[in-house]
């Protein structure tokens, strides 16, 4: 931190402070204990779900939710998996989320190319209108969308949800990418134009390769957001075969789920994909969300 210059008095004093800070404060264990307690509270529900999902029902009846299972019993997980046709739900969620992230990134990229590079007149207004459009509550568009989907035969198809979310999420993508593209080095674009490159070729062979990391982050966001969406898939995908994981979870409350071990299994199965995404994308996500919120 302050090692670089040690010549004058103030930096020396600073270095001492830094050393003091580095010297261990006895209070630090108290602070750590409080933080661990808070973290334990935050993570406790996850832990409970794991603990009870692998417990035999009989054991739950005797030992309650806090007992450590004596053996791993996957009956309840298997039962919920079969009853809810979980593999089908997983597949639906993956297909919808993947399609939205590809299509959404593509729409965002096109929009941002016109706004950030092309500086199309009125781009500021277009951006604001797009953003306002997605900030409003989804209930204010859900009924007309439901009606339109029924009229066009897209009701209860995954395509309807894919189109809706690709458009809704591309508003944020347009905003993010046009900020990035407006700072894209002019010289590179001009050089490409001198070589006789068309706008189309410049986009795919000059801009996309440079932007690839940002596009991946955006795609990841779209994937997870779509995975977690509830209201629109709830309304649009009524048949069991088309439902997503998120909707299936939202409907378990209404179903006959008196067995607490079965409930824990449901929660557990719902958590697993999220934890996997989290482990894979932790760094991208935490950084990217901050960038998205503030920039």
């Amino acid at each position, binding site marked *: 931190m302050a090692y670089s210059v040690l010549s004058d008095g103030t930096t020396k004093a*600073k270095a001492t402070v830094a050393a003091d800070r580095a010297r261990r404060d006895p209070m630090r264990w108290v602070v750590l204990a409080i933080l661990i307690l808070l973290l334990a509270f935050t993570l406790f*529900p996850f832990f409970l779900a794991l603990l009870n999902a692998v417990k035999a029902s009989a054991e739950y009846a005797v030992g309650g*939710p806090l007992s450590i299972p004596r053996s791993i019993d996957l009956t309840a997980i298997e039962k919920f998996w079969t009853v809810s046709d979980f593999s089908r739900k997983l597949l639906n969620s993956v297909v919808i989320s993947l399609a939205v992230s590809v299509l959404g990134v593509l729409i*965002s990229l096109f929009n941002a*190319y*016109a706004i950030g590079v092309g500086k199309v007149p009125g781009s500021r207004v277009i951006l604001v209108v797009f953003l306002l459009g997605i900030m409003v509550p989804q209930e204010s*568009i859900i009924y*007309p969308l439901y009606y339109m989907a029924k009229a066009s035969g897209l009701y209860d198809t995954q395509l309807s949800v894919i189109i809706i979310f690709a*458009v809704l999420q591309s508003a944020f993508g347009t905003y993010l990418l046009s900020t990035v593209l407006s700072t894209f080095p002019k010289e590179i674009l001009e050089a490409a134009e001198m070589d006789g490159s068309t706008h189309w070729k410049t986009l795919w062979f000059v801009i996309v390769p440079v932007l690839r990391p940002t596009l991946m982050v955006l795609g990841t966001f779209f994937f997870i957001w779509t995975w977690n969406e509830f209201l629109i898939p709830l309304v649009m995908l009524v048949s069991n075969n088309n439902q997503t994981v998120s909707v299936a979870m939202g409907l378990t409350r209404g179903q006959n789920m008196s067995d607490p071990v079965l409930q824990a299994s449901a929660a557990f199965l719902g958590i697993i994909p999220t934890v996997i995404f989290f482990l894979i994308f932790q760094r991208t996500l935490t950084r990217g969300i901050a960038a998205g919120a503030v920039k």
Partner: protein
Amino acid sequence: MAISSQRSSDGSRSYSLYLIPGTIGFILIVLIPQLANLGLSFTAWKGVGTPRPVGLQNYHRLLTDDQFWGSMYHTLLFIVSMTVIPVCIGLVLAALLFDYVRDQFGEWVSSFFRAGFYLPQILPVTVAGVLWGWILNPVGVINITLKAIGLDNLAQNWIGDATYALAAVSLVIVWIQVGYCLVVFMAGLSRIDPSLYEAAELDGANWWSRLVTITIPLLAPEIFVVVLTTLIAALKVFAPIFVITAGGPDNATLVPSYLTYYHFFTTQRVGYAAAIAVVQTTLTIALAVIFLRFQSQQESKE
């Protein structure tokens, strides 16, 4: 001059072709449905046949609808659990992890805590609902545990009793929201010059006064962003209510989004539901406009 301007307008015309897919999508998915919803709010309609125009009747009825006003009142309470409490906890945690834990235990420990607190934020809300519903229900984890340790009289019907349901749902919402505030605040803190803290420490400022005099003022932009985005989210809160309490018991946790959903799809009073959605949309747009203005001010400052 004349040539170059002609060229650039040619250029922007061909660039504007790239806006076509996005614009068509926006018109179909956002603009037409919004206008249709606004139109429907002036009609009485059951979802079949032709909507019957009724002027402002739906809005008149809103004024005296106890369910509606109850839901607005609950929104105010959810602003506390969605914005106020998470922002306060997030600020203290972020400052603690950044200004203390990192120095005392190293970067790795600080990142570990940040990741842990963030986890509920990316869990689908419906899964959070199943998880907490299972913990809070009358024969759920809390009550079983309370009975096991002999505190039977503390056991309550947490989500089935109107007195506790609102608090129980609020707890779940706080649990979800803290991670968002924490992550944004920590990202903001990383642009603060550490020598500021060292200088303050030289002057004998303790951790708390550093939080109040340095951290909070410097994080003002992030705090503003988080407050506004969570306020907008609080106005729209739907999934946790749907999953945990379905607005009950006795409308104790009813929110505008749930009321709208209920009237659209259960009572089929489409025009009335549309009117509630319009009120909610207007409030959201007002907040969103403030948010966007602030962001463009920030950008022009940079």
